[in-house]
């Protein structure tokens, strides 16, 4: 011991060398254990005005390898029981990841109970589905994969099918460090891809950035969209911004928007069990709204004009009708919004500014199998 100490004290450089070599190997080991997958972070890009109120689970960081794998899975029919539909079947890029139908057809030919939602800016969504029952993407994605009216295949079966391919095991290894395909990894990869579906390059965004000059009609529409009506002060408005305000055009809210006096679909009440939540549904984003008809949770409106008519003249009373849709009018003492024909056209012109052509044509979101097997 004394000798060792002596060596250490007298032979400083040697000791230093030895400990440096040790430190080098130890740190290599540490780095190895963290980055064993050799993954590259995927940088999510969005304008500053979108804000960063989102949480990406610590156990599922977004990586280039994970996103690519998720994209392949999104477009793979092997994830459905009949090998006949993929996520894309109900979420097509050219329609801002909707399918243009009121209800979608599942793997067994049966219909879904609600309309397929646009997969846009999900990074900022905190309560998924029309009734907000799912608190995160990783959990949300289980439902369409396994529900009998959708893809209808147990996750264990999906993992088994993918394991038997030559394509997937190496891709899972790249993304998650091991070629073992698990249910959890399938959900994680799909969620990673879905987080990248950011639409922030519409004419509205360019207008906010000062690089697009809207028409006078679009500007009138924007004013109506944002203003609450105040007939006493001569301000006309459609009050859309109350729920769809802000650059993301949705707020994380659930409201009964006066579709029915007696709701066939009880909406959020089914999840919360609270009677006050009867027929309350998620406020969806209006991004790419001109591409995502039909509208509402049951796709009852086929045109944007019907939607505007609804909010202007056809709100139906019921015990849980949103207070924001009651006794609000552009006429003093009026019972409905009473927008003019021209005002509705102005609003539709503004809504057209929310179409993001680069989003629906972005090759990074398209079917990668076509490139693999041309």
């Amino acid at each position: 011991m004394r000798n060792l100490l002596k060596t250490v004290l007298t032979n400083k450089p040697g000791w230093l060398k030895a400990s440096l070599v040790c430190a080098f190997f130890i740190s290599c080991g540490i780095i190895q254990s963290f980055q064993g997958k050799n993954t590259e972070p995927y940088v999510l890009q969005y304008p500053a005005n979108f804000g960063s109120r989102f949480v990406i689970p610590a156990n599922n960081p977004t990586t280039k390898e994970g996103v690519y794998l998720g994209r392949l899975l999104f477009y793979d029919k092997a994830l459905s029981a009949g090998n006949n539909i993929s996520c894309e079947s109900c979420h097509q890029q050219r329609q801002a990841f909707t399918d243009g139908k009121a209800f979608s057809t599942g793997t067994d030919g049966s219909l879904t109970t609600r309309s397929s939602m646009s997969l846009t800016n999900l990074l900022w969504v905190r309560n998924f589905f029309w009734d907000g029952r799912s608190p995160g993407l990783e959990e949300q994605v289980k439902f369409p994969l396994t529900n009998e009216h959708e893809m209808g295949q147990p996750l264990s079966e999906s993992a088994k099918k993918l394991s038997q391919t030559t394509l997937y095991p190496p891709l899972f290894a790249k993304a998650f460090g091991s070629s073992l395909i698990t249910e959890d990894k399938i959900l994680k990869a799909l969620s990673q891809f879905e987080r990248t579906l950011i639409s922030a390059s519409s004419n509205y965004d360019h207008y906010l950035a000062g690089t697009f000059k809207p028409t006078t009609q679009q500007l009138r529409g924007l004013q109506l969209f944002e203003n609450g009506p105040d007939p006493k002060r001569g301000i006309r408005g459609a009050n859309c911004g109350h729920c769809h305000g802000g650059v993301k055009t949705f707020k994380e809210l659930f409201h009964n928007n006066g579709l029915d006096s007696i709701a066939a679909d009880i909406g959020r009440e089914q999840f919360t069990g609270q009677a006050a939540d009867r027929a309350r549904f998620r406020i969806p984003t209006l991004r790419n709204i001109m591409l995502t008809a039909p509208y509402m949770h049951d796709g009852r409106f086929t045109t944007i004009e019907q939607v505007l008519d609804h909010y202007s003249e056809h709100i139906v009373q019921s015990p849980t009708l949103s207070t924001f849709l009651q006794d609000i009018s552009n006429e003093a003492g009026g019972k409905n919004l009473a927008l003019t024909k021209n005002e509705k056209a102005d609003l539709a012109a503004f809504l057209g500014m929310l179409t993001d052509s680069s989003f629906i044509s972005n090759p990074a979101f398209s079917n990668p199998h076509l490139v693999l097997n041309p």
Partner: protein
Amino acid sequence: MYKPKISKRCIAVLLLFFGVTFSSLAQNTATLSIGGEVTTPLELKLSDLSSFKQVSHKVKDRDGKEHVFAGVALIELLEKAGVTTGAKLRGENLAKYLLITAADGYEVLYSLAEIDPEFTDQIILLATTKDGQPFGTGEGPFRIITPNDKKPARWIREVRSIKVAFAKN
């Protein structure tokens, strides 16, 4: 001409009846949860609040009219749940906040110090009545009243949950 009028009126009366019944039913079963950084998580029904000291404020609401809101001082509920108030509201506890969520998902935030009587004279209310009546649907059964807030955006209606948390950076 006469017949449709009567049926319309009948429907209106029926709707009103169901509406009122629905409203009182929904309000009696609605609960308010207080959780997060507390020693005793609480799940309160409207009837549970009668055991607390009743306080009231006469303030102008969004409609521009004065109303008397009555209920319980928010601080009392926080004390009951074992939140770090009073002498304990110091050091890192000053970085705690309340995230209050409504039935529709609307959220507002208060810092603990904004509510504590050692910091402020303002008594923030968890109101349960307006002008002596229970709130209507869309407003109750619980609503926050913060008299010193000029803009009533934080007078959050239909309060469902209060979460006490640390601000984390």
